[in-house]
């Protein structure tokens, strides 16, 4: 049905990683050195680059797919599979290194909530600014202004600078603007992860409306599988920059979930960034004898071993770990200060019930910055044979073993 609005043929994206390249502010010495290097390169052709190890990295390769008008397509894949790169190419932020992409109609991308918001400006002013940045005309914004304000629920604070907003209010307002975009193709990255659950539902509902009523096309990336399944009818599964499968969303999610288990008990970043003050080197799952394992009995203690590369300890970095269940819901969280390059988190026995789990971990300075992240890695499963509930068969008895007592 419908006609092709997105047609990708052999898309590929190559990044070059210079290992001595530094990000952010360059010092004068480096600048000069870089200049001499670039002058030298121009004079000598490509001869003199040996001092700087250059590595090629294909974020996407040989990717071909079609999207029809009115399709809602969920893109799944592990971290580093190329989901975000694909969205960036479709939203024309970066150009592909190989292949060809045809787009029909207006594309709007929502890769971040509140892109272009200026904290010094008021909520009212930011609606106009953000709307324009996302591609709405002033006329369009004026028309929808009341609707946007209504949706956001920050009416009393419209004339307050956004810097005085709570983060919840900020997200609401930013999302309200974005939700009223009416492009032909809407590209959405992991933005629903922020904001409270109720508001998320409201946004999903709004996006659902947009596609159903107006036949718009949506491409949606999220780690939150339930919302992908709610919103999307089709799916694309990327693995290591290539297309693994595409088709009806249920099949894709099933493929994704079944492929996720038993594969990676060890996580190592695809390319380690040597600039990070603290970064993940390796995360592995082991049992109490320090043997790598992916399957545990409910009576076992589960150990998560974090190997970190600590290059600077100027700031109070902390390691934040969340255990996700098979629906990528967060079961619980643990946090510790980053002190040693190896640290072990032991999960108590008689705690997780049977099921598949994975880890979402990041290193951050609380409320300031997140410097490295390992999303949805290290799958493991917990088996339950012989617990007090196991005689109930496949009955869903919750997420964790509760701690309780019957008092008679």
């Amino acid at each position, binding site marked *: 049905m419908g006609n092709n609005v997105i047609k990708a043929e052999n898309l590929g994206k190559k990044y070059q990683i210079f290992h001595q390249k530094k990000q952010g502010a360059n010092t004068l010495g480096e600048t000069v050195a870089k200049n001499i290097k670039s002058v030298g390169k121009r004079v000598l052709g490509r001869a003199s680059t040996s001092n700087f190890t250059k590595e090629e990295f294909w974020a996407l390769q040989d990717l071909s797919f079609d999207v029809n008008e009115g399709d809602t397509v969920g893109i799944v894949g592990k971290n580093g599979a190329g989901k975000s790169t694909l969205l960036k190419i479709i939203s024309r932020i970066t150009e*592909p290194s190989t292949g060809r992409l045809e787009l029909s109609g207006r594309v709007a991308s929502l890769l971040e909530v509140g892109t272009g918001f200026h904290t010094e*400006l008021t909520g009212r002013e930011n609606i106009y600014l953000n709307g324009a940045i996302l591609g709405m005309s002033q006329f369009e914004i004026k028309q929808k202004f009341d609707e946007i304000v209504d949706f956001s629920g920050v009416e009393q604070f419209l004339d307050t600078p956004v810097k005085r907003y709570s983060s919840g209010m900020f997200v609401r307002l930013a999302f309200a603007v974005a939700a009223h975009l009416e492009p032909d193709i809407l590209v959405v990255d992991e933005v629903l992860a922020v904001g409270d659950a109720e508001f998320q539902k409201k946004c999903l509902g709004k996006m659902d409306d947009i596609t159903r009523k107006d036949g718009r096309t949506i491409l949606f990336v999220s780690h939150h599988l339930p919302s992908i399944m709610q919103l999307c009818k089709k799916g694309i599964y990327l693995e290591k920059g290539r297309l693994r499968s595409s088709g009806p969303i249920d099949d894709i999610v099933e493929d994704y979930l079944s492929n996720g288990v038993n594969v990676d008990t060890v996580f190592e970043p695809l390319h380690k960034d040597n600039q990070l003050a603290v970064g993940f080197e390796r995360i592995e799952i082991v049992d109490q004898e320090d043997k790598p394992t992916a399957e545990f009995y409910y009576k076992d203690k589960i150990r998560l071993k974090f190997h970190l590369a600590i290059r600077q300890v100027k700031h109070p970095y902390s390691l934040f770990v969340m255990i996700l269940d098979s629906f990528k819901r967060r079961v619980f969280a643990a946090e510790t200060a980053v002190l040693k390059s190896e640290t072990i988190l032991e999960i108590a026995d008689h705690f997780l019930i049977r099921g598949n789990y994975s880890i979402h971990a990041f290193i951050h300075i609380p409320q300031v910055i997140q410097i490295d992240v390992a999303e949805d890695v290290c799958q493991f499963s917990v088996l339950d044979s012989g617990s007090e509930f196991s005689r109930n068969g496949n009955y869903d008895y919750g997420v964790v073993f509760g701690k309780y007592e019957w008092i008679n």
Partner: protein
Amino acid sequence: MNRIIIEPGKTEKNYWLDIWRFRELLFILSWRDIKVRYRQTKLGIAWAILRPMLTMGILLLVFNRFVGLNTPNGQPYAIFVFAAQLPWMFFATALSDASNSIIANERLITKVYFPRIIIPLSSVATSLVDFLISMFLLFGLLAYYGVEPTWRLLMLPVFFLLVLLAAMGAGLFVAALNVQYRDFRYIVPFIVQFGLYLSPVGYSISRVPEAWRPLFSLNPIVGIIDGFRWAITGESVILMQLPFWISIGVIVCFLFLGVYQFRRMERSFADLI
């Protein structure tokens, strides 16, 4: 429905049409910069008046009082200086703002698509507001010193167009290169600083030996300043002569170079920034 085809290394067919479609964004971004610029300042918009007045005062003090320079045709030195200061300050602010603009808007570059050229152009447009305020000051000065404007003032828009093009050309060129080579963060303030002395703002072009003038005019602002002075005070030294055309030539070259360099690099901004 318009069909867009994206292929590596291929330049956009309807690039200039796209800029037209995003023209509102250009104004909104400048409006944002203007709104934000004087937030949390005590004097607010008064700075837009104070800055040019103070600059003029100092140049007047140094070149007129200390050094003892005077205008060739007996016009007030304040107006003589201010006429040159108009294009120079516009060029200097537009160039410094534009050169940093892409880096300052990193978030936009990596998260949303629109023709990137909008960003430096909006910086130039922002500087326009200061220029217009200075124009009002000029009329105030003319009234204060009792100088009657002549028909020549009608030519001012032409010379303004020249300085606008000069700022756009240099601004685009530096803005693009600045993404990859942050060296320009150091170079631009330097250019602006010594440019004030290498441009005849505080003194007359007639002070420059005639043999040196063609070389001197490689600085495009030289020709423009002569034009502004001619339109406002009636005094011109090189207008319609070889040095003037050299300045114009440099402006045109820079404009082409700037647009070319910017368009060549903008596709990789998101990867380089």
